[in-house]
């Protein structure tokens, strides 16, 4: 069964460094999403992407964040200058023609 994959599974970085989290959505899906989940808290929407542009973004998704679909398969989330409070699990999800979102296993980001 097709699935969403994410790399790396765990990323440790120093405060102020840039990180890029990578996702490979299910092929032929058209809608892509990033969410984050701080330990012990709820899943929070960050951004959605459709037709090569951002469709919606939350107030969390400020100028430090950016998304890109550099080729036909990858979908990336970049955090330009990480802060301690960016430490969280980051989930990518994709959706095809139905309303169901399929989530990846997540990347655990630890900012020191």
């Amino acid at each position, binding site marked *: 069964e097709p699935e969403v994959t994410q790399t790396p599974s765990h990323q440790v970085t120093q405060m102020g460094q840039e990180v890029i989290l990578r996702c490979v959505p299910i092929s032929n899906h058209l809608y892509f*999403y990033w969410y984050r989940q701080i330990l012990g808290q709820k899943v929070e929407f960050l951004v959605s992407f459709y037709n090569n542009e951002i469709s919606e973004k939350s107030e969390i998704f400020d100028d430090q964040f950016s998304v890109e679909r550099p080729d036909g398969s990858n979908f990336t989330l970049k955090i330009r200058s990480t802060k301690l409070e960016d430490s969280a699990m980051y989930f990518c999800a994709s959706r095809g023609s139905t*309303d169901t*979102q399929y*989530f990846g*296993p*997540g990347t655990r980001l630890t900012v020191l």
Partner: protein
Amino acid sequence: SQKIEQNSEALNIQEGKTATLTCNYTNYSPAYLQWYRQDPGRGPVFLLLIRENEKEKRKERLKVTFDTTLKQSLFHITASQPADSATYLCALDTPTGGFKTIFGAGTRLFVKA
């Protein structure tokens, strides 16, 4: 502002019983509502989707109801098993065409053998 509340942080039940989880929302008119399962350290896994014009939906031992008047969804697991122990998340898409999904905080279900 839009709000989703799942009424229990945790629910303990005995194996074989029916678990019932509640999701309430305010300041929303969602086209549909979804339920997900999340295990520790893992991503949410889609379980069921119910649309505003559907009252009830079933899938194996799972049943979801959707009352748009009460602004409430109930999620039932019948004949519960210890393997059903997980966090169950309610999620709504905002009325912008499914581009933004808001999750509730989840209910942790513990099923004792």
